[in-house]
C-alpha cells in the first residue's frame, strides 16, 4: 500500500490473496490491539494494574504476520509485545484483560506471570518467559517435532531486535537452518532495547543481514504496512511448508510507547523523534488505504469504534469481576499430578 508501487501490489492482494472480509478482519485486530493496549494503560495509571508492556506501533507487523499462519495446525511463540499476535490467533479480549489483572482464569498463567507473558494451549500459543530469545529455540524444537511426527506444522518465534544479540537467537537460527526446519523467525524491530538504540546494539544496519550467517533468507519488511508484512510472511510460510527451511523477517516498526509502564522514553528519545514516529502510526495509515480502495468509509469506522469500545468495556468488566487466584493454589503445578 505504500506509495504508488505498493498500491498496485496491495490491489493484487485484494484480488488474489486477502478478501475484503479478511482486510476488515486485519483492521479489526489492529484497532482492537490498540484499544485494549490503551485501556491497559488507563488501568495502570488508575492503580488497577501494576504493570503494562505495550505493542503500540507494532500492530500492523503483528497482525500482518499472524494472519499468514494457520491457527489449526501452526504454533506461535510470541514475546511480551505481541498483543496483536495473540488476538489475531484467537485469544479473546476478555482473556487478555484477565491476564492484565492477574485473575485465576487468565489462560496464560492463571495470574502467575506478569501481563503479556502469553501462552494459550488451546490456541497453540506456547508459554513464554521474561528472559529474551529463549522462545526462538522452542519454536525450532516445535518444528523439529512436527517433522519427526510427519505433521504439516510451521512454527514461528517473535522477538525484538535486542533479542537478536542473544546467543539463543544465533543458536536457534543455526539449529533450524542446519536441519531445514519449518520455522519463521519474526523480528519486530522498533529500534530500541528499552533505552539502547539499535546503533549501540549491533554494528550492522539490519537484523535481516544476520540471516546470511545461517544460509537462510533474511527479509526486511515495512512493518507499518500490514499487507507487505502479510505477503512477506506468507512467502516465508510457503517456503517452510515446502521443506525449504526457515526464514528471518526483519519487520521495521515504531515504538509509540515507553518500554513499559515503569519506563519513560522521553528521558532518552527526543521530542522530534517521538513526534516523527507518531506520525507513522500504522493504524490510520491502513484505514486511509482501505478508504482509497473504496472498501472502508466513515460509517463503517464509526460502527467499528462502537463495537470495539463495547468489547473492551465488556472485557474490562469481565476481568474485574473474575476471581483472583486462591492463595491455596500457590503450590500447584510444580510437577505433573
Amino acid at each position, binding site marked *: 500500500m505504500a506509495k504508488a508501487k505498493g498500491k498496485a501490489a496491495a490491489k493484487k492482494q485484494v484480488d488474489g490473496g486477502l478478501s475484503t472480509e479478511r482486510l476488515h478482519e486485519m483492521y479489526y485486530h489492529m484497532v482492537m490491539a490498540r484499544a485494549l493496549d490503551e485501556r491497559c494503560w488507563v488501568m495502570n495509571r488508575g492503580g488497577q494494574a501494576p504493570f503494562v508492556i505495550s505493542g503500540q506501533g507494532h500492530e500492523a507487523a503483528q497482525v500482518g504476520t499472524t494472519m499468514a499462519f494457520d491457527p489449526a495446525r501452526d504454533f506461535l*511463540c510470541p514475546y511480551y509485545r505481541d498483543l496483536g499476535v495473540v488476538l489475531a490467533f484467537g485469544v479473546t479480549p476478555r482473556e487478555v484483560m484477565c491476564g492484565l489483572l492477574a485473575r485465576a482464569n487468565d489462560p496464560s*498463567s492463571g495470574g502467575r506471570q506478569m501481563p503479556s507473558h502469553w501462552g494459550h494451549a488451546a490456541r497453540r500459543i506456547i508459554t513464554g518467559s521474561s528472559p529474551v530469545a529463549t522462545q526462538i529455540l522452542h519454536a525450532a524444537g516445535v518444528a523439529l517435532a512436527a517433522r519427526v511426527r510427519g505433521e504439516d506444522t510451521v512454527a514461528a518465534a517473535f522477538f525484538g531486535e535486542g533479542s537478536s544479540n542473544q546467543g*539463543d537467537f544465533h543458536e536457534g537460527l543455526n539449529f533450524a537452518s542446519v536441519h531445514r526446519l519449518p520455522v519463521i523467525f519474526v523480528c519486530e524491530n522498533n529500534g530500541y532495547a528499552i533505552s539502547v538504540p539499535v546503533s549501540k546494539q549491533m554494528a550492522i544496519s539490519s537484523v535481516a543481514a544476520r540471516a546470511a550467517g545461517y544460509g537462510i533468507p533474511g527479509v526486511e519488511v515495512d512493518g507499518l504496512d500490514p499487507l507487505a508484512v502479510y505477503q512477506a510472511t506468507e512467502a516465508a510460510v510457503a517456503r517452510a511448508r515446502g521443506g525449504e527451511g526457515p526464514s528471518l523477517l526483519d519487520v521495521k516498526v515504531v515504538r509509540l510507547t515507553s518500554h513499559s509502564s515503569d519506563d519513560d522514553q522521553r528521558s532518552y528519545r527526543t521530542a522530534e523523534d517521538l513526534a516523527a514516529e507518531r506520525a507513522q502510526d500504522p493504524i490510520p495509515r491502513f484505514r486511509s488505504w482501505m478508504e482509497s480502495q473504496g472498501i472502508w468509509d466513515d460509517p463503517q469506522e464509526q460502527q467499528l469504534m462502537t463495537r470495539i469500545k463495547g468489547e473492551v468495556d465488556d472485557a474490562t468488566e469481565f476481568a474485574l469481576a473474575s476471581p483472583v487466584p486462591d492463595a491455596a493454589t500457590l503450590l500447584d503445578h510444580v510437577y505433573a499430578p
Partner: protein
Amino acid sequence: MAMTYLEAVRETLRQEMRRDARIIIYGEDVGVRGGVFRATEGLQEEFGEDRVMDSPLAESAIVGTAIGAAINGLRPVPEIQFADFIFPAVNQIVQEAARIRYRSNGTFGVPMVIRAPYGGGIHGALYHSQSIEAFFAHVPGLKVVMPATPYDVKGLLAASIEDEDPVLFLEHKGAYRSIRGDVPDERYLIPLGEAEVKREGTDVSIISWGMTVNSSLKAAENLAKRGVSVEVLDLRTIRPLDTEAILETARKTGKVLVVHEDNLTGGFGGEVSALIAEHALFDLDAPIRRLAGPDVPAMPYAPSLEHAFLVTPEKIEAAAQELAAF
C-alpha cells in the same frame, strides 16, 4: 544378565525407543560416532537419523529445542556431552524447562530427559570432572536422578523418560566401565523419589548418591571385617528427595555420614544434614558428618592432585570409623 553401567544406559535407551516412537535422542556426537562414551552406539543405525541426531555444538540449542519438541508431543532425550558443559543451557533448563508447568498454570509440560555424564577420577581435569547436582537440585520443577548401579540405571532411566516433567539424569563417568551388575532383560521402572538401602547396618549410616555409593559400599565391606556395621542408603534421586528414608536410617543408627563428590560448601549434603537436624536431632548419638570434595574450583589434572581431590573408599572408611567410635 551382567553388564556395565554404560551398557545399561545404552540398552535401556534401545529398549525404550523400541516401545515408544516419541523418543528422540540428540546431542553432540551421539549419532554416527555413538557418543564420545559410546552410550548411544548403534542407535542411529537402528532408529534412523530422524530419531538419533547429531546436533550443532551449542548446549542451549540442544536443551531449548528439546523443550519445544517435548511441548509438541515428543519425548526428547538430549545429551550434554559432559556435565561441565551444561552451563550455557542453564537458562533453558532452569528458567524455561523447570518453570513451564508452573508458569502456565499446568497447561504446558516438558517431558524431557537431559542425560549428562558427571564426576571425576578419569583424568578429566577441571572441565571434564565436575559434579553439578547441587546447582540443579535447588530448582523446583526439575528432577535430578543419579544412579549408582546398572540395575538402577535401567529402572530410573525408563522412569525418567516416562515422567511428565524435565529430568536431569546424571551418569558417573567413572562408573561407565568400572561398575558392573545384573540387569534383567524385561522392562521395569524405579519410581523417582525412592531411596534404597544398599546395605543394612547398625552402627553408622552412610547417605550418598551416584558413584560415591559404590565407594561407600567398598568402605562398608572393609569396616565389616573390623566389626563396624555400616548401613548405606542410596538416595538415587536427590529431587524428589526420599526424606522418610533419610530420617529412618538416621534414627536407626544415630550416626550419619553424608558422602558426595561435589565440593563441600553448598553441596547437597548440607540439605540432607539440615533435614536430619530438623527432624531427628534427638535420635542422633554423634554430630552429622559430611565427607565431600574440597572447596577448590574443580578437579585438577595431575594424578597426584586428582587423587587428593577424590572421595575414595579409604577416606570414607576412615571417616565412618571415626564416627563409629564417637
